[in-house]
Structure formats: C-alpha cells, structure tokens
C-alpha cells in the first residue's frame, strides 16, 4: 500500500468513523504480537476496523498519522509481506534467510513505494530485542504531499520471524521532538 493509498485510507476511515484511536502508555505495554515495549509517554494507537487488506503492522502517532508514524511489526513469518497484500506486494515479502543488508533493502522499498524518495543515511549493528539487530536512519521525501521526512528504524530476526519498529516524521520539528522517545522504546523492546 503506497503512501497515497494509505493517506486516502486514513482519511476515508476517519470520515466514516471506523478508525479507532486508543491511547497507549506510559509504562510497559504489548506493542504488537509478542513485542513488549516501555513507553515514557502516551502514544495514540490507530486501528482501522474492517480494513481490507488487514494491517500487518501497528501504527502509533503523537501528532497525527499524517505527521508522525511509529510502525511496529512483530512476528512476520517467512514469505509474509511487510506491507498489506496487494497486487504488487510479493516484492515486499520477508524471507527468514534475509541478511541485514537485504532487510534494509526491503524497508527501503517499502518506504519508497508510491514514488517517495528514500535515502539511507546510516545503518549499523545494534542491540535490539536483547540480541543482535540493526539500526538505520534515513531521509524520505514523501511524494503525496512533498513533505521532507526523517526516519529511524530497528529490526531483528528471531526464530525466523521479523520484528521491527520504524518511526517517520517531518524533518523539521516533529522528528527531533519524538525521536528520543522512539529510541527508548527500541531499547526497551523485548519478546514475550
């Protein structure tokens, strides 16, 4: 699902009242699947009831989904896509044998879909989910509204399943405002 479709879906869902916004945190909570995180402040969790295709990640925000989005994937199995199944989604399938460089390419493709301009700034090994993982930073120009975004992500593969969190927000003001909270979430993340 590219960003334009996604924004359309968000708007349409809000218009018809099927988007459920639920505050989460602060404190330890179940983020998605088996992933537990500790929040230093409350976030807004969005759920889209009856969404088809079903969402494959949780979506949280501080200031609204059109501004900042924290996406959380947990328990993505081999050959499952990290984007909702659509006609072209097979290109976004996770495979358990993927190495960090391949996963970086997968997330790049996911965030570049719809014509967004993505530029990896940094990728490095890190500790995530109490084990080896990868941390990456990127810039993105969102085609739908021409907004310059900054992104930060963490991912790791455990028991052949992909777990990841990726935060994106406008480069000016919004990303710097929330990035420390996101770093804390990443550091706190564990699997049940």
């Amino acid at each position, binding site marked *: 699902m590219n960003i334009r479709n996604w924004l359309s879906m968000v708007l349409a869902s809000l218009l018809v009242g099927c988007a459920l916004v639920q505050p989460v945190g602060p404190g330890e909570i179940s983020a998605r699947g088996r992933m537990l995180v500790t929040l230093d402040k409350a976030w807004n969790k969005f759920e889209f009831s009856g969404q088809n295709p079903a969402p494959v990640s949780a979506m949280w925000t501080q200031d609204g989904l059109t501004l900042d989005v924290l996406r959380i994937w947990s328990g993505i199995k081999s050959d499952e896509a990290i984007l909702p199944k659509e006609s072209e989604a097979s290109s976004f399938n996770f495979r358990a044998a993927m*190495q960090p460089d391949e996963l970086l390419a997968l997330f790049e493709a996911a965030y570049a879909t719809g014509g967004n301009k993505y530029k990896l700034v940094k*990728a490095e*090994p890190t500790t995530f989910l109490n084990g080896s993982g990868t941390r990456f930073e990127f810039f993105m120009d969102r085609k739908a509204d021409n907004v310059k975004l900054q992104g930060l992500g963490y991912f790791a593969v455990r028991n052949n399943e992909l777990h990841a969190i990726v935060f994106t927000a406008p480069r000016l003001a919004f990303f710097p405002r929330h990035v420390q909270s996101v770093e804390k979430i990443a550091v706190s993340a564990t699997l049940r």
Partner: protein
Amino acid sequence: MPLRSESVPGSTRRVALRLAFGSLAAMAFSSSARAQTLIADHAAVVKPKDIGSDEGSFWALLDRDEADLRRSAFVIHDPGLIGYLRQVACKVGGAHCEGLRIYALRNPEFNASIALNGVLQIWSGLLLRMDNEAQLAAILGHELGHYVRRNGIVRFKDAKTRSGAAAAMGMVPLLGLIGGLATMSAGASVYRSHEFEADALSLRSLRGSGYDTREAAKVWSNLRAELAVDANRHASSQSAMFATHPGMEDRQAKLTDQAKDDAGGFVGAEVYQAQLEPLMHDLLQDELGRRRFDETIVLMTRLSALRPERSDLIATRGEAFRIRGKPDDAASAWTDYLAATQREEPSPIAWRGIGLLNRSWRRRADAVHAFQKYLALAPTAPDAALIDSYIKEMTI
C-alpha cells in the same frame, strides 16, 4: 509519448480538470497541411488575456501548480542538465523552446508531460532509458507537438465536463484524486489520435533538425522489451499515462514506417551520456528501488551492451539478480559483479556484492577481502558500519 499532456499536482478539482487533454488548435489545420508542418512552423503559444475564459482560468491553475512544482523535493536542481534539455528542445522546436519552463523530476518511472502554459516535466526514469540525444529529441518533440497544437484546451474542456458530472454524482469530494483519475480515464481513448499526431509532428521536426529519425521508434521497442518480461503486467499498470495513450506497438510501427526512407542523421549517444553522468548513481539506485527486478535486468542488459566500459550498469544488474533471488540468480550476480570489478573504474557495489555472496557461501576470507575493497572504494557509504560488522564477525 506515453506522456500525459498535463501536470498532475494540485487539489482534487484541479487534478480532475488537468488530467486530460485534447487539441483545439489541431482542428484549425487541415490534415494535408498538418502533414507538412514542423513544430517551428506553428504560431507562438501565448497566455490568454481573458483570465475569466476557460483557457485563461485553466492557465492560471497551471501557473499556480508550477509554483508548487518549483518547491518540490523531487525537482533535480542541475542547471547543466536543464540547459541541455532546453538546447535539445530548441533544436527540435525552434523558437517555441523559449516559452518552456523545463523541470527534470526524480522519479524512476518512464514519463514526461507538458502543460498548456509551457511547463515541461521529464522524469528521471525516462532519462535513464534514453540511449542518445536523438531519442530525447523525439520525446521533447512529441511534447512540443502537444504544446504547439494546444492539445490541452480540448482535453481541459472535456475534463471539466466530466468532472462536473463526477461532482454531481458526489465522486470528487469523496474520492478526490481517485475519482478524478477514473473520470479522466473514461475519455482517454478520445485522445489517442493526438498522440499519433504529436509523434508524427515530432518525427518530421527531428528530420528537419538533422536527427536520426529511426531512433524515435526505438524508444518504444526498448520499453516494450522491458515490459514484456512480466506477462501479468500491462503497460497501463506502470503509469497512469499509458491509459490515455495508444499501444506502444502501434506507435513503434507508425514511427518505424514514417522513418523508413530516412538514413543517417545525428544520434548523439556520447553527448547525451555526458549530460547524464552526474546523475547516474542516483538513477541506478532509484531503478533498483522500483523492485521490478525482471525489468531492471532487461534494462541493464541493454544499457551495458551500449556502454560495456561502464562498471555501474553491469553491477546494477548483478544487484538485481542478487536481490531477486531466483534459482541461479546468485551465479548470475556473481558473474556480473566479477565483470564489474574488471572494468577500469570498478563499481564499489560490485565488491560489496561479491562480499555478500561469499559471506552467504561461507567463504570468509574471500568475503572479508571483498568487503575491504568495498570500504576502501566507499569509506563513507551509509552501510559502512554494517559491512564493517560483517568483517569483524568473520575475522573473530
């Protein structure tokens, strides 16, 4: 061109109005007179004085869009490239090039468009796919053909009528862009004759300005070869522009026929490549980012055959093979990477690819050697820390 005749950005209604186009001026020409004209023979396109007229109001909307476009993060700010595009437009379009504002946009798909007010957009994916200046001139000539024939006016009026109907049905406010697209597509077939006319006008103007006209048809044969690798994907799914345009096969056939008695002319492969050179790294990265690996492999095979001395093209094909990951792809990637390292200026990504393949095959020493080569060639690469961690992991 499979190019929309209009720019796209803007609000719902503006988009709906803008997404289609036709030709009013074309009606002023008899078909026999049209057959002999060049782009340069057409009257100058002037801004309407009456801003309250259909054309005047549309022109004003387009000007407003241009202000948005100018601020777009996707605009390629390369004065040398823009100057070159203008120079080619002037060769093929004569004085009409003076009215153009040319924007090269970073988008890996194949598209170009021109608006009634002279805003010409050309996407980087199209630039990557042109083999030479003659092919670029064919594209620019086609767009100029729409421009001088003022094809936009009829399409604007038609779109306005259709968007009015859509609004009456409640489509536009709810569906916005989607509704606009659907409305526009309903009239798409009407405009296809304009595409053939613009092709023919472009080809005559190419001939008149000394280009090799046979290159025009190759644009379409090349693109068809790319798209043919995915039998499940119709060209119209690649870009909305194809929905409003004749089939590539038809256009290729007509252009081939129109150029059949021509021989020679300026091609300009080297001068074109020199202009594109500063962008090549980004263009190739963007191409891989499409994740249309089958198409990328076809494209890189063609481009590397044209320019066998380059390491980046063959290395990019290696990347496409490696990331696609079908049976035997690793072996194909390996062959490409090795070939790329043997060029005069080896591509860093070839060494990274060799390292990654060796790592996956557990050839630790060879992997470390290749990664070290990569880091020596690209010490500030974004993934340098990650690759360094691979080296450490294998040398413990």
